[in-house]
Each structure stands twice: as structure tokens, then as C-alpha cells.
């Protein structure tokens, strides 16, 4: 038992079962909600305090509201299924097991903002999902026609580019271009795909809206903790006896998480995938999983990737792997991300080989800070997170 776990507070891990619950009532949920006013639906979402489950945590209700208020001849709803963050695999499960919940949510969103067209941007790695998902869409569209709701959904396949999970890069990709993130503003709510107002939500976020539209916002709001309401899917991998996907209430302490999923030798947990933060054992007690602003201590948002590392792992190798990933997957347009990732990667190698002294790590930490401040998109701003948190906590492993 780690020291941290002895300090464990009372935040117990609370399992939930909404998303994968097999209920065959999507037709009712759709019909019922299409009979409500857009405002009612927006308010329902706002009072649920649902935040985006892709990792950034923007309030979903507000996102829909902004797009609904903009006048435009055409609007779009896009379901972001470009699940590329290392350690995340929940969206694939949602789409393969409960596709109708997501389709229903897309349709309700379209109704709210006034869109006639929805897309699912499915990463190329998940090509094998396409046929089944298409059959589900066909069935769904048939039902929409039956109830007189004018709406269609298309699958747009990605082709292997992590950065296309960034929403504006995703639009570029759908428009047939290189997936390079755009400058913001303008934001997607006013100018997204084809420069039209676009709501883009992660697969899981949409699945949660289904829960909210089915059970009402209160049921959702009552779960989790302040600022981090509801449940969240966690993709658990690494040194764990039970890797897999789990739906848990937000706000849990990392101590409890590790107690449940660790192998009694957990040295650190990477929260939020390669672009997230590494939390060492000594920090488990003060770390909760949720959005910022909750308690004293660190509150880490996440797209749901939880990777556990036990004491047999070299954090140098882990970091090397992450940085390789980013050096390859950065879109390459902005300087801090394109060159910064290469410098961090080659930098830790040089330190490890003794070609640069340990103090060089401090220079790289400052660089990491600059990357966070200056990169063009959300990815670029977060690529250095793992570097900083690993080097700060496992500096001795980085040095020759």
C-alpha cells in the first residue's frame, strides 16, 4: 500500500451505469424531446451542468445555446469520434454498443440549433465500425422520416491524424484539407464546418445528453461533485489487473481510483492521455478527477484516459514514447508545437546520454511553459503537460 492511500479521504469510487445500459427506448426519447421547445432543451442541459467529455470541458448547454441563437441558412452538428488520445477507447465502445443513443442526441441537437445535417467524424483506425454504424444510421433516418423530422447523418472517415480531434482541424479535414487547426476566434458555434455555425460534441458528451434528455437534468446533476457533475467514462489501461471502460461519478480521488484499479504497486497515473498530466504516488491524495475549481488541491480534467504505471516502469521511456507521438502527430504549422516537441524529445535523449547536463532539463521546462502559452491550438498548448509533470516528478530517471 502506498503512502498516499493511507491518507485516503472519504471520496469513494462510485460506479454508475447509464451509458451502456441497454434500453431500447431511443425512439420514445427522440419523439418526446422533439416535442419540447429548443429553449426547454437548452435549459435542461444548462441545469445539468454537463461539460464536454472530450477533455476541454466546455459547458455543453452553452455551446448549443450560442449556435441556436445565431441566424444562418445552414448549420451543422458534428459528432467527434476521432478518438486519438493515447489511452482512450471509450468512444469506440459507445458507438459500437449504443449507437442509437448518440444518433438520438445528434438529432436533438440538430433540432435545438436548427440543423438539417449531422456528421460523425470517425477516425480511420475505427474503419471496422463503419458498416454497423451505417446500418444504425439507416434505421435511425428511417425513423426520422417516419415521424416527419427532416434530418440526415453521414459518416466522415478520418485517415490517421491525431490532430483532427481538435475541432477546427476536424472541420479542415472534412473540407478536404490538411487537418491544421484554425485561428480562434471565430469559434465553431458561429463559424465551423464550411464556416457555418456548428455544434461539435464528443461521442460521450452526446451520450450523456441522452441520459439527461431521458431522465431529466436533476438525475445527472445529482451525480458527481460541484463543478464536475454527472458521470464519466474512464478508459483504464497500463499496469492494472482490470483494464477496460468504466462509468464512474466525477470527483473521485485518485487514491480511491488506484485502490480499485491499481496492482498494489502503482507508481504514477497518467490522467488525460499523453496530453494530460502524470500524477506521482505522493500526489494521489490531493488529486481529484474533475474540472478545475473544486477543492483545494489538483483537480484534473480528462477525456477519460487513465494509464497506470507500476514501479517496474521507466518514466524516461514513457516520456520518450509520448514525445515521439507528439513529434509525429503535431500538425506542424505552429512553431512552438512543431519545433518544441522535437526539442523536448531530442533534449531528453541528450540528457539521458549525458550529452547535455541535468540543468538542460530546466531550460526545457521553461520551453515547455512557452509551448503552453504560445501554441496555436489546444493540442499544442497541452503537448508539454506530460513533459513537465514527468520531469518535475521523476527528474532522477531522466538523468544519465
Amino acid at each position, binding site marked *: 500500500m502506498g503512502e498516499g492511500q493511507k491518507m485516503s479521504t472519504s471520496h469513494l469510487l462510485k460506479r454508475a451505469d447509464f451509458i451502456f445500459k441497454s434500453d431500447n427506448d431511443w425512439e420514445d426519447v427522440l419523439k418526446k424531446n422533439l416535442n419540447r421547445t429548443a429553449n426547454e432543451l437548452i435549459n435542461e442541459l444548462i441545469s445539468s451542468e454537463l461539460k464536454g467529455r472530450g477533455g476541454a470541458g466546455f459547458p455543453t448547454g452553452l455551446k448549443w445555446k450560442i449556435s441556436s441563437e445565431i441566424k444562418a441558412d445552414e448549420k451543422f452538428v458534428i459528432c467527434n469520434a476521432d478518438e486519438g488520445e493515447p489511452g482512450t477507447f471509450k468512444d469506440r465502445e459507445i458507438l459500437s454498443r449504443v449507437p442509437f443513443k448518440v444518433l438520438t442526441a445528434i438529432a436533438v441537437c440538430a433540432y435545438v440549433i436548427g440543423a438539417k445535417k449531422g456528421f460523425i467524424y470517425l477516425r480511420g483506425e475505427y474503419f471496422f465500425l463503419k458498416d454497423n454504424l451505417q446500418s444504425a444510421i439507416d434505421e435511425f433516418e428511417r425513423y426520422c422520416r417516419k415521424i416527419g423530422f427532416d434530418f440526415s447523418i453521414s459518416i466522415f472517415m478520418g485517415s490517421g*491524424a491525431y*490532430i483532427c480531434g481538435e475541432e477546427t482541424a476536424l472541420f479542415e479535414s472534412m473540407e478536404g484539407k*490538411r*487537418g*491544421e487547426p484554425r*485561428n480562434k*476566434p471565430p469559434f465553431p458555434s458561429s463559424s465551423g464546418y464550411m464556416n457555418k455555425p456548428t455544434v461539435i460534441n464528443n461521442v460521450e458528451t452526446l451520450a450523456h445528453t441522452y441520459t439527461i434528455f431521458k431522465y431529466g437534468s436533476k438525475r445527472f446533476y445529482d451525480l458527481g461533485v460541484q463543478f464536475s457533475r454527472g458521470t464519466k467514462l474512464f478508459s483504464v489501461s497500463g499496469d492494472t489487473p482490470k483494464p477496460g471502460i468504466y462509468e464512474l461519478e466525477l470527483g473521485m480521488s485518485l487514491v480511491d481510483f488506484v485502490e480499485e484499479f491499481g496492482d498494489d504497486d502503482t507508481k504514477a497515473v497518467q490522467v488525460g492521455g499523453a496530453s494530460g498530466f502524470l500524477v506521482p504516488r505522493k500526489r494521489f491524495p490531493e488529486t481529484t478527477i474533475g474540472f478545475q475549481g473544486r477543492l483545494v488541491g489538483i483537480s484534473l480534467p480528462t477525456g477519460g484516459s487513465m494509464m497506470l504505471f507500476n514501479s517496474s516502469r521507466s518514466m524516461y521511456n514513457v516520456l520518450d514514447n509520448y514525445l515521439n507521438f*507528439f*513529434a*509525429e*502527430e*503535431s*500538425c*506542424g*504549422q*505552429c*512553431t*512552438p508545437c*512543431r*519545433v*518544441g*516537441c*522535437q*526539442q523536448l524529445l*531530442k*533534449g531528453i535523449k*541528450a540528457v539521458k546520454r549525458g550529452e547535455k547536463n541535468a540543468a*538542460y532539463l530546466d*531550460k526545457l521546462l*521553461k*520551453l515547455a511553459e*512557452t509551448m*503552453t*502559452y*504560445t*501554441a*496555436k491550438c489546444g493540442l499544442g*498548448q497541452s503537448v508539454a503537460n506530460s513533459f513537465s509533470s514527468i520531469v518535475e516528478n521523476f527528474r532522477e530517471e531522466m538523468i544519465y
Partner: protein
Amino acid sequence: MEKRIKITINGETKEVSPGTSILDAANQSGVIIPTLCYHKDLCVAGNCRVCVIEIAGQKRLAAACATPCEDGMEVLTNTLKVRNARKHIIELLLSEHNADCTSCYRNGNCELQKLASDYKIMTQDFLDLVPFRNYTIDNFSPSIIKDDSKCIRCQRCVRTCAELQSVNALTMSYKGEHAQITTFFEKSMNDVVCTNCGQCVNHCPTGALTERNYIEDVWSALADKEKFVIVQTAPAVRVGLGEELGFDPGERVTGKMVSALKRLGFHAVMDTDFTADLTIMEEGSELLRRLKEVIVEKRGDVKLPMATSCSPGWIKFIEHLYPDFLNHLSSCKSPQQMFGALVKTYYAKAKKIDPSKIVSVSIMPCTAKKFEAARPEMRDSGFRDVDYVLTTRELAIMIKQAGIDFLRLPDMHFDRLMGESTGAGVIFGATGGVMEAALRTAYELVTGREVPFKNLNITPVRGMEGLKEASIKIDNPLKEWSFLEGVQLKCAVAHGLANAKIVMDTIKKGDADYHFVEFMACPGGCLGGGGQPIPTNPEIRKRRALAIYAEDVGMPLRKSHQNPEIIKIYKDFLGKPLGEKSHKLLHTTYIKRSSF
């Protein structure tokens, strides 16, 4: 009243109109924010991040070029955080850049070098990434050299090639650490749709794209006692050269340029303006002939509008992208090539010089002229008509190398025989100039009267509007041209190949009712050429244009057909426009090229 918003920049309040970028607002307030990927000619990319600034209340820094001002925004451009971040960005750029400045063609005029100097990047702590790459230098093009090791991926060239020129020879390829600017399948610039216009060169902040220079070749020719080295200077050079040598943009340095060329040792210093006037005689006659063939003879094989053919970037553009429309092109060679063909025939004969001993050099605002001079069709004198083409920039380098104090040079005149010109020849250097010059002559040829514009200034075809149109009604033509009675002569002017594309697409659709269209590859015409001083931007182009028109007004003769040397060459040598000799020496043919 337009709504205004208030922001503060470094504590000073400033009112701007909504949508103004922080960069523009700062510049209006006299606060300089360094930039790199930003260029006034191009859309905002926001990818280099050199222009980051701090906005009060925000943890992250914002790119000033890509962030619009918002009411109440407090912008800080010079905090410790900003300076440190900016320094990091510059260091990162240097780390992926072959920073061997002393051996770089752009040494001394490199935006990255200037930033490194301004921010005193004294040590390079970060690892040098260049050795990790397999960089190649593409030097197969006669016009442009592409050295990827100098590239900092600002994509200015890519945007230039796409937005200004609609050529799209360059693209960003791959991603992440491998991201780089390439052509299709990384072929040589010589083997793709590249028009050699050199706008990418002019917009490149570093030495990644440069003109292929022929400075040493020209020095060798000048040193060769066997050779008679003749130089011609294009109209736009005289309004740009000064910028490289200590003058402000818009200064005319014609006389000093002639002096400098003489001091460099050229045996004869003559003027491309002369063959610009000659082009008007030939091209104007060709236009009238075509009008007759179409209107009177109803010949289906003769196409209107007739398109000008002076701009070799434009020529290669149409050859690649509109190969089925080459019969719209005037068959006239460009003034440079007319000059080249005459130097080794007419001039050689008149001066009794063995043409094989003549080295013909031209100074051009253009990189495409280097390619043009090397075209196999351009050997009608029996030799290569123009041996070396230097850009305005290369001439400036030679003047500096020769230790000439340009500012103190006396003014001198071009040499005779092919050195006399008119205002019409001068304005070839500006967009609309060829059109204006042609109208001045053609109208008078047809009607016997001066073109009906005040002081001969045909203002509708002037200015920086991308597409300009003008029409002149022909009344009371001379007897020979009576078929033109009442005809509205419709003309259009396009500069920048993106505008050329717009016109060509209407022609392709059959929607264009023009008789005559002037096309110039470069924005602003030759004065904004790819071989002109760097930087070139909208403001500088305007000033160069003013200088061109000032030169025109100052000329005693302003119509090509009045040029006494033109009258003489037809009398002594060519006979008449479109005559047999003209046909052999002054006209050419074009080649269909692949659009990929």
C-alpha cells in the same frame, strides 16, 4: 457612425473599429510587434507565433496578427513573459534553420536574422535539428533555388503561390516534425506548374527561396576582353533599385542606374523601354489586324480577346493551365527578348560588332525572365538572344560589390540606337501600362487623333485594383480602318495571376467580350515583380507606381510611335510592323504544358 471599440495597448487607450487585429491596432499606435509569417499581401496564418502578446486576464499569450481587438481589452506587448516567449520562439526557429548566415544569399536581408539580432540570441542552447534531416537543394530551375534547410515553414510562399498567383506549385506536405514545403511529389520546381514568377522568393523571409543568380557569370563576361557586353534595363528597375541602395521606396534612379552600369564596365547601356515602344508598334498592329480578321474577314481561327505576352510568368501560367487558349496570346515576344534578338542583329550590324562576341545582359524586376531567356525559341538572332538575366536585387549586389557610392552618382543617359524611349515604354512597368501605351498608339493610328483622355492619362486602367476595365468608342476612323467605326473597344487589365485566372475562366466560359486584355503575372505589374527589392508590399507598390507615372509625365515623348529610334529601326532595318523581319525576330510561339 461606425461603432468603435476601446482597447489599451501598454496602458494607452486606443479606439479602433471592430474586427481590427491587435497587430494593426498596435501599429496604428506606434507600437511595433515583430512578425514573421505575417505579410500584408497574404491572409493571416498565425502560425509562427513570433507576434505573441499578453492580454490582461489571460494566462495564454495570443498571436497579435490573428486576434481581433475586443472592447475593454488590455494588451501588453512588452512584458517579461512576452519577451521570454518570443525569444524561445525565435530560438526554436533558429534550431530548425540552417543558420549558416555568412554563406546565405539572404545574409543581411533576412527577417529571421533580423529577429535574432534584435533579440540578441547570443547562444543557441537548443539542439540543432538540421543535421537530423535529409534536406535537399533544388537548383534545377533557371529562375528559383529552393533550399529546404533554410525553411522555417511560415508558409508565406505557399500562401503567395495560392492566393496571389493561383498557381499552387507549392504546398505544405506531411505533418509534425516532417512538415515541409514541397511541390507535387517533391519534384523540382522546374518540373511542376511553377511559373517562375518569383513571388515566393519575394515573400520568403529567409533564404529558403532565392533567385538563381548569375552575378559571377556577368562579372566574368565584363572581365573578358574579347566580349562586348551590352545591358538593357527594364522600366520597373529604375523605380525599385534605389530601395536596395539607400533611397526610400518610390525614388526614381534612372540616371544613377545608367551611371552605375557604365562604371560596372558595360560597353553599352541601353533601355528595354525602347523595345517596349517597339512592342507597342508590333502588338498594336497585331491587335488591329486581329480586329480586322475577326470583324471583316470573320475568321473563326483568330481569337479575341488578344492577350498581351510581355510577362513570362503569365506566359508560363497560360501554357500550363490554359493550354487550349494559347491562340489568344499575342505572338509578340516580350520587350526583353525583342531587345535580345535585335542586339545581336540590328545593333551588331550597325556598330559593326561580331554578334558572337556580344554578351547580352538584362536587368529585370523578374525571375521568370531568366527562364524566358533560356527558352529554346529565344535564339532567333542565331545565338542565345539574351545571355544573362539579373534581377533588380542582383544589380544592387553588383553595385555594392563594385564599391560604387550610388547616392553620389551623377545622372547619365542611355546609349543611342536602342536607348531612346517614350513615356509609353516607361509605363510598361506598372499594371495597366501596356494597355495604356497600346491605346495611346492604336487609337491614334486608327483615328489620326490623340486618345481622348486628359494629358494622355488613361486613368481607368491605372491603380492597384486587381481587375480593371476600360472601353473606348472609335469614331471617325481613318479610311483604312473604317470597319472600326462605332466599335466600343473593350479592354481589361489583370495583374497577379489569381486575377489572370478570373479573366481566363470567363474567357473559357465564353463570357468575356473583351477585345484586348493585359495580363501581368505579378501584383502591381512588373514594379511588384518577383525580382524587385524585398520587401515588396501594397504600400511600396503604390509608391513605385507613382514613380513610374511621374517618369512618364516627365518624358518629352509619350507615345511609342513618336520614338525617333523606333522610326529609325523600321526605316533602316525592320521595314514595317508585322513585316517579314519582325516576324522572324520579334514574334514567337508557345508550348502546351502539363497542368500537373
